[in-house]
């Protein structure tokens, strides 16, 4: 148990706003191991992205209040800035949502990849004038090597004509190419953990499938642990080994994808599944979730989902909900579980198999 690559325990991240404190992450715990893809599933505002950023310690302007983030033996919540900087990008890489926004528009793509390469060179201090490219201060040969490596990385990511694209700017790339370039940056250092925050949301379906395939091969070939943040059930089902369902910054349900997404025990997970367009039979009206996630001002002393839950009782609104373990892998936070099977009807059962995914539906 102790050798998990990433172990997030009882993590609290809050934002102090004028209207009060927003508890974006409210005691979330989960783990990611080498060579596995863990999905973090939830609606907008459920705390997914803040969780991802907290792990990289890029949570500002939020503050981590409590909890530990153990990464490969280092507690990131207490690590020094220089340790963090070395881990960031070196051992943990991030891929963010919109590749249009995540690449710097004023520098060539090749330079941005080469930069990532140079950052991770052993025993090289990052000198400002060198990185600014001031003549005489720029280490020409090191940058030439880094550019060669960038071409290699672009080639690995199947970016066509990498040499000629080295000097192209992000706006000259298509969305899919940009996200591949972002992946190239993330992989420049051979990271142990990759945090992908909605990496495919801004992409069309074909490109999405391509990027997800790349994530899977990273897991299989390089033994990278991947934390995949998504609001898309299909993406999670296709790609992930385990899934953590987040709501109001709390873990509602967590477990292997084929258990959680085929036989969900938590009413919130069930509701998400019902809403999935892919899970509806043709002609059937797609369900929508009533209400919106409550604004988590003030920490929950109750189930955050209670107000939208059709099984909620007074007890759900009155006290802290303990986590119960169904088995060693599958856990959930619900007082009413196990739920009656009323809303998991037969046609949803089989439709739960994600399109194009590898899981079979015999379960």
């Amino acid at each position, binding site marked *: 148990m102790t050798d998990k690559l990433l172990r997030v325990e009882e993590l609290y991240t809050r934002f102090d706003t004028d209207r009060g404190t927003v508890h974006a992450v409210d005691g979330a715990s989960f783990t990611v191991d080498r060579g596995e893809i863990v999905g973090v599933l939830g609606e907008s505002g459920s705390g997914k992205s803040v969780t991802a*950023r907290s792990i*990289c310690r*890029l949570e500002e302007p939020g503050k981590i209040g409590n909890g530990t983030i153990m990464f490969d033996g280092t507690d990131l919540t207490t690590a020094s800035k220089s340790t963090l*900087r*070395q*881990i*960031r*990008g*070196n051992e943990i*890489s*991030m891929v*963010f*949502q*919109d590749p249009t*926004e*995540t*690449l*710097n*528009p*004023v*520098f060539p793509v090749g330079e941005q990849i080469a*930069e*990532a390469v140079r*950052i*991770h060179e052993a025993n090289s201090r*990052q000198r*400002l004038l060198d*990185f*600014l490219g001031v003549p005489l201060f720029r280490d020409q040969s090191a940058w030439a090597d880094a550019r060669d490596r960038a071409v290699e990385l672009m080639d690995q990511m199947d970016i066509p004509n990498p040499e000629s694209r080295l000097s192209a*700017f992000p*706006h000259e790339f298509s969305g899919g190419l940009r996200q591949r370039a*972002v992946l190239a*940056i993330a992989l*420049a*250092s051979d990271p142990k953990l990759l945090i992908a925050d909605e990496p495919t949301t801004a992409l069309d379906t074909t490109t999405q499938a391509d990027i997800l395939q790349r994530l899977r091969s990273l897991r299989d070939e390089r033994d990278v642990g991947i934390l995949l943040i998504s609001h898309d059930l299909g993406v999670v089902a296709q790609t992930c080994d385990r899934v953590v369902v987040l709501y109001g910054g709390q873990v509602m349900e967590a477990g292997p994808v084929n258990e959680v997404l085929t036989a969900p025990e938590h009413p919130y997970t069930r509701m998400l599944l019902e809403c999935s367009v892919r899970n509806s039979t043709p002609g059937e009206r797609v369900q929508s979730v009533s209400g919106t996630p409550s604004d988590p001002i003030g920490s929950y002393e109750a189930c955050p989902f209670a107000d939208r839950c059709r099984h909620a009782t007074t007890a759900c609104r009155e006290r802290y909900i303990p986590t119960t373990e169904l088995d060693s892998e599958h856990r959930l936070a619900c007082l009413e579980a196990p739920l009656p099977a009323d809303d998991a009807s037969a046609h949803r059962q089989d439709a739960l198999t994600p399109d194009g995914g590898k899981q079979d539906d015999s379960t």
Partner: protein
Amino acid sequence: MNNQYLLKRLVTMGIVLFGVSLLTYVMIFVTPGDPARTILTQQMGGQTPSQEAVEQFRVSEGLDDPFTVQYVRWMSDVLQGDLGYSYYSDQPVTDAIAQRLPNTITLAVASGIVAIAISVPAGIASAVNPGSRIDYTAQFGALVGVSMPNFWLGYLLIIVCSLWLDVFPVAGVGGLEHLVLPAVTLGSGMAAIISRLVRTAMLDVLDAAYIRTARSKGLREQIVIYKHALQNALVPVVTIIGLQLSYVLNGAVVVEVVFQRPGLGTLLVDAIFARDYPIVQGVTLLIGVIFVLTNFAVDLTYNQLDPRIDLGGELM
């Protein structure tokens, strides 16, 4: 960038400069006061010139021709590099300008350097620590800088630095020591405006996703700010610096008078008081040309700073 764009810009610039020259000429033309009478009075040492002499002067200087004739004559001379002669000294206007221009350019460049050297670091420091003591200090300084009139700051600096501390000369031109006080006077006002703009632009940029990417790569914060953020924030800043040139030229008039620097500003002021129209026209036209050219240069840097800005001229 391409030739078509350049051509388009050159044509537009030609039209703008034509407008500038026309306005300059009209303004002088409609200004009350009869130059012939004024000049003759001066030449005769205060005596009222005879009507005959005035008429004669008008004919010889072409002052009785219709406006269009006078304008076309002036313009065709200008295009040949002849801005006419000063009414008083008979010195060619081009010579008078050539004598003074270097001093003004030196002042403009020096005050620009002062302004950028103060404002960019101050603006960045503010933006990186918004709401901090540094931020408030910088913003307060900017407010003071904007509110302080040039002539007042100029005299204040003369009193403190020249008279009390005796570090810099009071006035005149010469070496670097003569340049420091005028450049600080002129530059600090500019710095105030630029630093506020740098702050706003940087605050905007520091929130961008690509800054998060840069940090997540493990880049040093200094490089994140001075490389990844600053270049994105520069487009509006460079625009303002370009526009501030008009401020420098306006300010130069005041600052050159305060510090007794012979420059375009003092030349213009003296010429206006003396109704020396050829000089006024020449200087105004030159300032217009400088202004238009600077803005052109600023536009050309956009594409260098941000490759997404297409300078147009043809369809992509």
